[in-house]
């Protein structure tokens, strides 16, 4: 038992790791296949099992016939995600600072209720909001537009930035704010000149969360856009339902998750420094 345990442990970790990377490896190898390589049944190793081709990847970047336009959804996704993240970060940081530093009272509603109100929006299933969003964006003439999606995403991401930033601000001692006020700063100057410069780790974490959740949304992009505006997940899923060859599908899926994998590595480095969610 004593000697078996480390072996079992290594085997378990290895098995899980294989499970984690399996779909990525499968997509990677598929992306280099041609029609023959796919229809011959599952094959894995290029050059041995099948003759690899760069056709799928070239198709993604616009050259050659039968290419799939992934560039413009990629740009749209980037624009929507970044602008919604930025707006919700600004609004969320302001609200979080207020909730962390002042006490609000409106009847029985206090700070904790307000914070809960912000954060609890994450409980809401998207489908519940989809119908009113659909109708309201319709009235505003914002269906199928980037602007419409940005508005919806701001609401989606605001709870995340409030949640992360309230936690972060609570970890900054109030004495820092008080000292700034005694040194002549109004509450706004205190926030801007003293608290914000010391909040970079929190802003980074909140920003990363916003970007991940924004980038990964499918449902709202799917229900609130049709033809003019297309975000990346919707583009890929619609490839899925049409008769798109697997190699193109795989290549575009990999392109779409690539930024997230980069972020995963960044987050890991952050976790390792131990500075997530708190000041050093």
């Amino acid at each position, binding site marked *: 038992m004593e000697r078996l345990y480390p072996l079992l442990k290594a085997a*378990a*970790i290895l098995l*899980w*790791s294989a*499970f*984690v990377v*399996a*779909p*990525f490896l*499968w*997509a990677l190898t598929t992306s280099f296949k041609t029609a023959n390589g*796919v229809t011959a*049944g*599952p094959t894995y190793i290029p050059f041995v099992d099948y003759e690899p081709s760069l056709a799928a990847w070239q198709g993604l970047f616009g050259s050659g016939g039968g290419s799939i336009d992934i560039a413009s959804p990629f740009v749209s996704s980037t624009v929507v995600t970044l602008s919604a993240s930025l707006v919700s970060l600004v*609004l969320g940081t*302001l*609200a979080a600072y*207020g909730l962390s530093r*002042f006490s609000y009272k409106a009847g029985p509603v206090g700070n904790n209720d307000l914070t809960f*109100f*912000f954060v609890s*929006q994450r*409980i*809401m*299933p*998207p*489908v*519940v*909001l*989809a*119908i*009113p969003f659909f*109708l309201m964006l319709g009235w505003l003439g914002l269906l199928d537009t980037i602007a419409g999606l940005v508005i*919806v995403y*701001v*609401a989606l991401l*605001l*709870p995340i930035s*409030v949640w992360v930033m309230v936690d972060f601000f609570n970890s900054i001692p109030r004495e820092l704010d008080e000292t700034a006020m005694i040194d002549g700063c*109004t*509450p*706004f100057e205190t*926030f801007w000149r003293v608290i914000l410069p010391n909040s970079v780790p929190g802003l980074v974490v909140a920003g990363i969360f916003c970007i*991940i959740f924004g980038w*990964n949304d*499918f*449902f709202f992009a799917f*229900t609130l856009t049709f033809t003019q505006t297309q975000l*990346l*997940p919707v583009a*890929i*899923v619609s490839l*899925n339902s049409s008769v798109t060859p*697997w190699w193109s599908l*795989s290549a575009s*899926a990999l392109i779409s*998750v690539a930024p997230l994998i980069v972020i*995963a590595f960044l*987050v*890991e480095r952050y976790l390792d420094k131990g500075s997530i969610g708190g000041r050093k």
Partner: protein
Amino acid sequence: MYGLTRYKLFFLLPGLLVLLAIILFPLIFTIRVSFSGWDAVRPGLDWIGGVNYGRLLADGRFWQSLSRLGLMAVSAVAIEYVLGFGLALLVWRQIRFRRLVRVLFLIPMMTTPVVMAVIWRTVFHESLGPANDLVTLFGFAPIPWLTNAQWATFVVILVDVWQWTPFMFLLLLAGLLSLPREPLLAAAIDGAGPIRAFWNVTFPAMAPISVGAIIIRLIEASKIMETVYVITSGGPGTSTETSSYYIFIRGLRDFQIGYAAALSITYLVIMIVLLTIIAKLLTKTLIKAEA
């Protein structure tokens, strides 16, 4: 005092107003729509009373989708909890493994669920996918992954487990790393074996974070729909159709807006009630057991 009110409102109000406008107003609006007969033929806010609610009570497809969702969510989260806890226990003492395993585990939870679902669908393709290749390698007959109701449910759960076990793992690992060492040492001195030490010391100490992680996951799992949409489209038949998916079909496919609104409100209320009960029960059984 000191004109502080000005500053207080300056910070809070923009975010609060945006949230009220984009979340609370639509929610109230949905409640109102649920009492109307709004559909593709007669769009508009008329008042038909509780007709939609009466209809949904007799709508077997809705209630089946709810119980199916319950089954999927609970089994997926249970598997994720056990696996996540197990993996965390395996690596928490070894720093060497921790970083590699951590980055490997961060990736699934960060990647876009629908995009991964697209890949998973090719993995479980009956004749061209590697899943059946593996099954036949072990000498079994190929499995009708996506055309058999049970297997399709299994695939949906498996994909959720793939994506969200890492979330459990990371939370529980953080919990394990913050545990005080003394009680474990004391248990070791008392001669408790690793298994007894786990049940008597580690597990009770991990109860609060466990409850938190399970609740967060249940909330998320109760929204399952995107992966179902991509992998099985609710099929075969309606055998993997979740509540969100059914509401989506009624509302934004069939344009029975009023009825879909009634369904969403009912779904939301049932979800909040059930999750609250589950949270209370978990807190009671897991955390009380400690005392």
